[in-house]
């Protein structure tokens, strides 16, 4: 069963067709790679899937529901979330606050409950949904920071984190939603080979631990080839190829358009 189906997806900016009739799907529980030269339309596809852009044509089906042109937050609440290629953290908040904020998805207490139970003696508070859920959120935030190795820098202002940590924080924030489908846009950018390797393990670990599917954009071929179950290759907005890492690596067209001699793989 596929968690995501993209069907004939097209996006135009003025006269420019950034994504042109692209069709592929992401199998449940898989890690699917989305690769292609710069400007091929990868990020644009993420923007379309997450509702940041309106589609020009085609269909996006998530978990059996058509979601194209839904509002971004609704799509997020259905279970798709992402990281950004150009990092978009809550810049002036701390690491902990970034993660905790994102955890909000897992709580249901209302504004009214918050107003009433916010400042009352513990005895009364303890039995409220507000108290229980807030406690839970905090635990979740701690856990996520732990998993992504952010505990040491929990009180850093996000903007002051080194690049690599900002990327991790983006992942942590995305995971807070307990997504069914996680879209990662160049998570390894700015990481050295050692760190990239750790990230590779982390992504696989996350997939299993959180029981989710991953759609991944990356230019680090070692990472892509190692963990992807399937790879979709884009070129000039069109799908160029689709297949297992092996197939893709040996595909001459992909080599010519993207890999270049294959010495990066």
């Amino acid at each position, binding site marked *: 069963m596929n968690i995501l189906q993209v069907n004939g997806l097209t996006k135009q900016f003025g006269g420019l067709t950034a994504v042109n009739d692209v069709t592929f799907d992401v199998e449940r529980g898989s890690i699917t790679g989305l690769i292609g030269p710069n*400007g091929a*339309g990868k990020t644009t596809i993420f923007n379309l899937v997450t509702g940041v852009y309106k589609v020009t044509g085609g269909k996006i089906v998530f978990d059996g529901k058509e979601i194209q042109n839904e509002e971004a937050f609704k799509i997020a609440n259905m279970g798709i979330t992402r990281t950004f290629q150009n990092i978009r953290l809550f810049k002036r908040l701390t690491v902990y606050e970034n993660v905790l904020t994102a955890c909000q998805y897992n709580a249901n207490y209302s504004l009214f409950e918050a107003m009433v139970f916010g400042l009352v003696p513990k005895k009364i508070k303890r039995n409220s949904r507000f108290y229980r859920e807030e406690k839970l959120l905090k635990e979740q935030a701690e856990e996520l920071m732990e998993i992504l190795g952010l505990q040491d820098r929990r009180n850093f202002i996000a903007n002051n984190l*080194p690049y690599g940590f900002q990327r991790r924080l983006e992942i942590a924030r995305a995971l807070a939603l307990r997504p069914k489908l996680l879209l990662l846009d160049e998570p390894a*950018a700015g990481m*050295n*080979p050692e*760190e990239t390797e750790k990230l590779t393990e982390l992504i696989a670990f996350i997939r299993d631990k959180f029981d989710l599917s991953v759609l991944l954009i990356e230019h680090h*071929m070692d990472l892509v080839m190692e963990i992807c179950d399937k790879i979709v290759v884009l070129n000039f907005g069109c799908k160029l190829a689709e297949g297992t890492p092996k197939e893709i690596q040996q595909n001459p067209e992909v080599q010519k358009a993207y890999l270049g001699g294959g010495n990066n793989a």
Partner: protein
Amino acid sequence: MLKVKNLHVYYGGIHALKGINVEVNQGEIVTIIGSNGAGKSTLLNTITGIVKPKEGEIFYKGEKLSLIPHKIVAKGICQVPEGRLVFANLTVKDNLLLGAYLRKDKAEINKDLQNVYEIFPRLKEREKQMAGTLSGGEQQMLAIGRALMGRPEIMLLDEPSLGLAPLLVDTIFKIILDIKKMGKTILLVEQNAFKALEIADRAYVLEQGRITLEGGAKDIASDPKVQEAYLGKRVVG
């Protein structure tokens, strides 16, 4: 040519650079490797005057550098900053022309422009597009192209291969070598340490604000500690 002496930089309470000494000679490629948060970008930013050091001096051609960015740039030092920082509200072409802001030679500027377009044909196609809507990799090309337009004597490159497709990564390193051949000097910060060390003459390893290792690029590349920490277990290629 460029000499950094006992540099200390603080961000509020954070001691980001703890007494750095770096030297770059005319016509050399020098690379700085180090993990996230080591202080690489901080070093480059301090050289171009964007970050003010608390202690220490920077000499350029024997002269002490001022701390004012545009004066530093006027001396022929140019940086490709981390995060690209293209002018999102201007077209690709305007971005490139701004790279040549301090130059007056119209004809030469035009020649360089064509040259950049040759290296990155994608930019030529997108000449009139607003830079902010370019894809990540396209922006990176633009940032490099913009720096080339300034015809600097020394270029500070902060992770120039970031976000570029493998094919282009090769291109970029070729370009860096080409620039060197033109007699220019390069200070390169790279996560792709393997490639960086391959083209560099000398290298520094930066760890938590301190230089822990320095020497010829080949030596550094064969250092077991460096191999483990920065090159990954499987050295590819």
